Structures are given as structure tokens and as C-alpha cells.
């Protein structure tokens, strides 16, 4: 005899769709369900693959190495900052100030370089500025102000500082190290994408293999449980915002280096693209579930879509519209569909047990 605790506590409060979808799952066969589960779980990977195939068929230039490397370079800042955003969202937070931080770092780096400060001093210094901005944001979040509000305030005030500091003017950058960061390459792969890959791999490692990553997910999954298990929630929150601030600074360096100037207009609307890439990849807006690989794919998808539409000669304003639509679809999949599908997956697992 197998002793077992078999009582049931209703999950209805937490997962309102569970019961209806379980009931409905009776109508779909098990294989059908497994296919749908896979479709939603890996939807973005599939969407990216389909888009790549469709575009290769419609444009000769799309499938060239030059074009691919170009798209990877464009996606780099999104991947770099998205890695930080993935951590923030894992704690059920959000950071709307990353685009503004990019602008501030851009003008600071250009200006300090123009004063004749050596690049190896300027780079650590601006990274530190980004980290401090993030740490301050995180600290205010731990006081109980919603992250949305704190970082919305950051969005306007940090960009404001960038404009005040630069008087609204762009400053050219011609430091050789910066030029390399923006346009150089190693083994045929451009520097921005290389930097992005290093960041993503380290980010993946920290999120999935270390205590810090696990505690980040636990904080976002259920904060009260994480707290009574003794996790340092405030420290974790300050650290994820500091990380994102630092990565926004790194993204700012890459963007300014690529454009060869420091401008207070750098990174406008970038926060939305970063959030879109992260959510597209499957990281939950409500915390507890996060994937760096997904964020990388989300960033690539956004950039390949833009690139494909550009190649087809579509009006750039339509590209913005399409990006918006993709975001809505992604959030829909992220919230409603995913929850329903997870309960199907659960039903499937339970059948497997029998």
C-alpha cells in the first residue's frame, strides 16, 4: 500500500482558468493537447523560424551573411538590456527607465571623452553611473513604491538630465576603442553582438545556476513565501535593478559607439522594445518565470521583422505599428494562453502518472 496525502485544496483563487480549461480539455485528444502546449511554449521560436523562411523567399538580400550580421548588430543593445530586464521581471518588477539611462550614458561618455579622459576610465565610470541609477531605483522600489511609477519617473527625469547636461546637442565620438566597440569585429562576428552574447550567456548562467538567480525567481513567484524562507528580498530587488542599470549603461555605450556620437535622443522608446523582447521570449510579467534564451529570441524576432519589412520597402511607421501588434499578441500569449496551456500540460502530466 502506498500511503499518500491526497486531499485537495482548491486552486481556483490563484488560477481562475484552471477548472474550465481542464473541463474543456476533455474534448481535445491528448496528442492534440500536447501539440498545442508545445506551440504556445515554443511559439516564439517557431514564429522566428517561419518569418526567416518567408523573408528568405520574398527577398534575395535577406538571407545574405551581411544582412544577418547587420541584424545581429542591431539586436545587440536589446539583448544586452533585455538580459537585465529579464531579471527585473523575474521579481515581478519592470524598468521603464532604461531608454533614458541609455541617453544619459551616451551624453556622459561622449562629453567625458571629449574632455580628454582616457576611454578606460570613462567606460567603468559610466557603467558605475548606470549601476548607481539602478540601485537607487531598486532602493525606492523596496520602500513600497510600485516599480512602474518609480521607473516612469526615471524615464522622464533621467532623460531630462541628459538634455540639461548636453544642452540638447550631440557630441561626436572618435575614440578608437569606442569605434571598435561599435563597428569592429572578432572572427568575423561584430563586436556589439559578441558583447551581447557574452552578457546573455553570463545572464543565463546566473539566472539558472546560482542561488541569486533562484532567489530572484522565488521573490517574483511568491514574495511572502520567499520572505518567510528567509531570503533577502530587498537586497535581491536592489541588485536586479542595479544590474539592469549597469546593462542599460553598457547598451548605451554600444549604441553611442555604433552611431559615433553621444546624443540625449539616444534610446527613445527603447524601454518598450526591451520589454517587448523580454515578454515575447516568454518571461512572465507577473514574476517567477523567466528565460534569457527567450529574451534573445524575442530581440532577434523584433529586429528580423523590422529588417524584413524594411527590405520589402514597407513604410517605417508601419513597422512601428507592427511592433506594437506583436507586443500585444505576445502579452496575450504570455498571460491568458500560457496559463490555460500550462493547466493542459498539467492534466497531461497527471495522465502520464496513471
Amino acid at each position, binding site marked *: 500500500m502506498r500511503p499518500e496525502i491526497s486531499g485537495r485544496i482548491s486552486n481556483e483563487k490563484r488560477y481562475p482558468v484552471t477548472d474550465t480549461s481542464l473541463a474543456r480539455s476533455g474534448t481535445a485528444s491528448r496528442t492534440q493537447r500536447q501539440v498545442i502546449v508545445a506551440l504556445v511554449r515554443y511559439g516564439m521560436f517557431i514564429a522566428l523560424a517561419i518569418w526567416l523562411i518567408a523573408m528568405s523567399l520574398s527577398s534575395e538580400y535577406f538571407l545574405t551573411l551581411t544582412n544577418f550580421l547587420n541584424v545581429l548588430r542591431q539586436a545587440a543593445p536589446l539583448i544586452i538590456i533585455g538580459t537585465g530586464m529579464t531579471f527585473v521581471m523575474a521579481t515581478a518588477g519592470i524598468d521603464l527607465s532604461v531608454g533614458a539611462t541609455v541617453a544619459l550614458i551616451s551624453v556622459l561618455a561622449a562629453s567625458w571623452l571629449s574632455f580628454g579622459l582616457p576611454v578606460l576610465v570613462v567606460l567603468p565610470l559610466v557603467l558605475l553611473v548606470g549601476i548607481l541609477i539602478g540601485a537607487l531605483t531598486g532602493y525606492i522600489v523596496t520602500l513600497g513604491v510600485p516599480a512602474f511609477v518609480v521607473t516612469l519617473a526615471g524615464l522622464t527625469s533621467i532623460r531630462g538630465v541628459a538634455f540639461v547636461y548636453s544642452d540638447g546637442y550631440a557630441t561626436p565620438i572618435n575614440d578608437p576603442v569606442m569605434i571598435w566597440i561599435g563597428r569592429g569585429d572578432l572572427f568575423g562576428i561584430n563586436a556589439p553582438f559578441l558583447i551581447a552574447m557574452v552578457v546573455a550567456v553570463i545572464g543565463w548562467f546566473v539566472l539558472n545556476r546560482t542561488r541569486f538567480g533562484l532567489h530572484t525567481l522565488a521573490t517574483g513567484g511568491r514574495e511572502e*513565501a520567499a520572505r518567510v524562507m528567509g531570503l533577502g528580498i530587498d537586497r535581491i530587488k536592489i541588485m536586479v535593478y542595479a544590474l539592469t542599470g549597469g546593462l542599460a549603461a553598457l547598451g548605451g555605450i554600444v549604441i553611442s559607439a555604433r552611431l559615433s556620437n553621444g546624443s540625449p535622443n539616444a534610446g527613445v522608446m527603447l524601454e518598450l522594445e526591451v520589454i517587448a523582447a523580454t515578454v515575447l521570449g516568454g518571461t512572465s510579467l507577473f514574476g517567477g518565470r523567466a528565460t534569457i534564451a527567450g529574451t534573445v529570441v524575442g530581440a532577434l524576432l523584433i529586429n528580423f521583422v523590422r529588417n524584413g519589412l524594411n527590405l520589402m520597402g514597407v513604410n517605417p511607421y508601419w513597422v512601428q505599428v507592427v511592433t506594437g501588434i506583436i507586443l500585444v499578441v505576445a502579452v496575450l500569449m504570455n498571460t491568458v494562453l500560457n496559463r490555460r496551456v500550462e493547466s493542459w500540460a498539467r492534466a497531461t502530466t497527471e495522465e502520464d502518472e496513471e
Partner: protein
Amino acid sequence: MSVNHIEMRNIYKSFGAVTALHDVSLELQAGKVLGLVGDNAAGKSTLMKILAGAIPPSRGEILIDGKPATYSSPIGARESGIEMIYQDFALVPELTVAQNIFLGREITRSFGGIRVLDRKKMNERARKLFSSLGLRVPSVTLSVQALSGGQQQAVAIARATGFDARLVIMDEPTANLGAPAIEKVRDTITGLKEAGVSVIIISHRLEDIFAIGDYMMVMKQGRVVGRRDVHDTDNAEIVEMIVTGQDPRRAGKAVA
């Protein structure tokens, strides 16, 4: 006479304007089972969260084996051998069974000088833990949100009893459980007691405490109404104490 394993002295706790506990004291010898009963909002969970280090008392003292306890966090309490099963289980739904069991005290190994999670070892240990407790979950690598309520409770029990605890606190361990599951929880408590572990159970089901408990403590509105040996009382008396908030054996002495 030996010293008490656990002693709480004059614990006072207020949440702003609400006073949840007015100078509550509690004593428990090692290897004994105490039932903590009382109406809703009596302060039972608050008292136990203070003992488990999850919330700090406004005033008062905790002694373990006669020595003042110095912990101020759940980690500290766990290091002193105090584990708690929370009323809502305190599990993170997105994490796996094994991740929840080791949350906050993960096993790590060195990976080129960096501490990384030793997932294999934790999964292995979690599996062993379940089989030694006779509890069953589909898989320790499944996320907790995919488990039924009873299975989630099994995870919470495994987490609290799997780390050489000396005191296990259970907040409503049998609420919402079916009869076979309640039987299993009772067996678990009896097993802990035989191993010399002290247990405090908060329960609205008096029959559970009469079945496995040694003592009872009745609370109402943040005060202790009275204490009893389970063999020296009956259901009717306890119910009367819970409802009236008066100890009938002190009638006449106490001025309400």
C-alpha cells in the same frame, strides 16, 4: 526537573492600532505535542510566526533549552531547529518541488571557483526525503503549481521535517484534507514525537489534538484563556473556553 525545550515569555505584538498579542507565554518540553486552539483572529498564527522568526515581537523573550534565542530571521530560527508549516504552505508555485524544499539553504558545489547550485544532489536528497516520509509526489522536478493541494501540503511537510528539526510548528495541517490524508498527517506527527521532536499544532479540529496531542492552550483575542493536559479535559470544556474566553476552573477568581 529538566528545562523546557521552548519557552516564550510575555510576547506582545501590535500591528499599528491592532494588538494581536497581549503578553502571551508558552512552555513546551522536548518531544511533546501542544495543540494551540482558539477562535479566528485569536493570534495563533502571529504567535507561531514570531517563534519561527518570520515576524519580530514588539516585546517579549524566547528561550530555547533555557537560553535566550537571539535569532531575528527565519534562517536563524531554522538554524536553531525550528521549522514551520505555514497556513498557506509558503511555497513558490513556479519553482520545482526540490527547489522549494531547499529554498534558502540550497546545496552548492564549486564550478571553477564559483558557487553553483548542485541540482542533482538536491533532487536526489528530495526524492529520498519523500520516500523516507512515505509521502508521494509525482516528481521532484515538477513545478509546485502542477500539484494538487494535498500534494503541495506534502511538500510543505517534507520541507519542515527533513532537516533535523527539533520543533515543528504546523498551522492548520489538516484543514481541507480528506480523511486518509488527515490520518497520514497524524502518523507524521506521531513519528516526529517518537523521534524526540516537539510539535505545536494550530487546529480548529479538536479531535486531531485529542488524538495525538499532550497539551492544549486556548487563546482568544490575543490572550491565553487557559492550558490543559489533554487527559484532564474534554471537548465540551475546551469549546466553552474557546467561545467564552473564560477558564471555568478559575471562575470566581478572575474578574472579567
